[in-house]
């Protein structure tokens, strides 16, 4: 198995607040790993550090064996290979759905327009965005549709891995399903993915491995069956208890 992403002793602090205290893990090709853990545990910061939207203080990150943390790296070139799906979608507000996906292909990949259009259309189809939505602007789309366009924007770039930062937590309950379905579709296609999510059932369903991140360190990891069905760690038990209770209240 080819190793796509490797993170070694990653640390990040804001002032005196140590958010990541040395995180280690790796992901192989076609693997899906899910990070769970309480809010403020550093999950989002970890993802943002991986593609350097937030600069880590120390540690090493390798993508396909190339060190991102080295000072000589071509950062935009490397980011192009790391898809990122944000909690709040972050679509380009002045462009319609179609052009949101097309933008990177034309301006970054410098594809010929015909080829770019074909790629964009394939990506939009893959996430189930109907042709009649293509010319709508983000503000005219529902949250679920926006997030699926954002996923299309990421996969159109043909990344080596996609990072998902709580992709459904800003969505109304009835819209979560369509986004999870789109992510599942990618999983079936063999996309390598790292997800942060509170959708425990979904995590159990999709993940090869679950990492529990709390207080800036991965305190436990394992296959979903043992991590979720019968967790040994007290903190994980407590966390899963709270999450399940919240679900029931909804």
């Amino acid at each position, binding site marked *: 198995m080819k190793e796509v992403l490797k993170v070694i002793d990653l640390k990040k602090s804001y002032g005196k607040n140590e958010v990541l205290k040395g995180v280690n893990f790796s992901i192989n090709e076609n693997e899906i790993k899910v990070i769970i853990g309480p809010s403020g545990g550093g999950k989002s910061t970890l993802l943002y550090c991986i593609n350097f939207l937030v600069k880590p203080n120390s540690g090493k990150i390798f993508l396909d064996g190339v060190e991102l943390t080295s000072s000589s790296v071509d950062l935009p070139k490397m980011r192009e290979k790391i*898809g990122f799906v944000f909690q709040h979608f*972050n679509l380009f507000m002045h462009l319609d759905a179609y052009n949101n996906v097309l933008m*990177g292909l034309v301006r*970054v990949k410098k594809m010929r327009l015909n080829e770019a259009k074909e790629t964009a259309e394939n990506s939009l189809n893959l996430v189930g965005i109907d042709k009649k939505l293509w010319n709508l*602007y*983000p503000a005219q789309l529902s949250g679920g549709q926006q997030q699926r366009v954002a996923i299309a*924007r990421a996969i159109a770039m043909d990344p080596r891995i996609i990072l998902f930062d709580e992709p459904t937590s800003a969505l109304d309950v009835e819209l979560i399903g369509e986004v999870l379905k789109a992510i599942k579709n990618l999983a079936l296609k063999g996309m390598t993915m790292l997800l942060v999510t509170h959708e425990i059932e979904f995590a159990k369903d999709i993940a090869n491995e679950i990492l529990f991140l709390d207080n800036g360190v991965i305190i436990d990891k394992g296959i979903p069956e043992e991590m979720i069905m019968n967790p040994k760690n007290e903190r994980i038990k407590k966390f899963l208890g709270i999450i399940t209770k919240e679900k029931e209240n909804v």
Partner: protein
Amino acid sequence: MFESYIKIFDRYGPDILSGLKLTIYITLISIIFGLFLGLILSILKIYGPKILKILSSLYIEIIRGTPMTVQLFIIYYGIPSTGLIRFSPFFAAILGMGLNSAAYQAEYFRTAFNAIPVGQSDAALSIGMNRWKVILYILLPQVIRITIPAWTNELIALTQYSSLAMILTVMELTSVAKFIGSKTFMYIQSFAIITVIYVILSIVFTRLMVYFEKRLAIPGVSVVRGRGSLF
């Protein structure tokens, strides 16, 4: 009562027209010059290296902290006195007003840049754009739209400020009115005429900008609401 107006138009119509032309030229050329310089200043102030940040802030503060009259005098009388270079009155007026407007426009642009949620820049970086591409393809198209209302204000202000060109002996609208007044002693009538012209010109500029604002509005976002509707 209207005889005197008819007399003025009859004799000085062409002068008024050429004054109006100059007023429009000065206003439009200097606002466009200010637009480009203002954009550069704002981008440097936000994204530039530290030294350029400081220089750009300094420029903006100095220009906004001094009267335009003083700036025009420095350009038209001050600089030539060094013997280095001499500007025509028209050019000096445009240069002075453009440099002045750039400082104000830079601040309009800066607030617009800051108004765009940082998530969009993150997203653009995440698909592999470098920061100049982010500015050019993602931020700028939105900044221009956000700035239009403030820019309309600036355009109207510059229309009125263009009368300051008269102190550099440019024969724009106000100079023409003064000239007609001194020839005919019909000061009230000649200034009444240009007052009406200035108001009409400002209204035309405003309507034009509202048209652009509507034309460029992003569906679902920057809705220009109908007149008189509060909500």
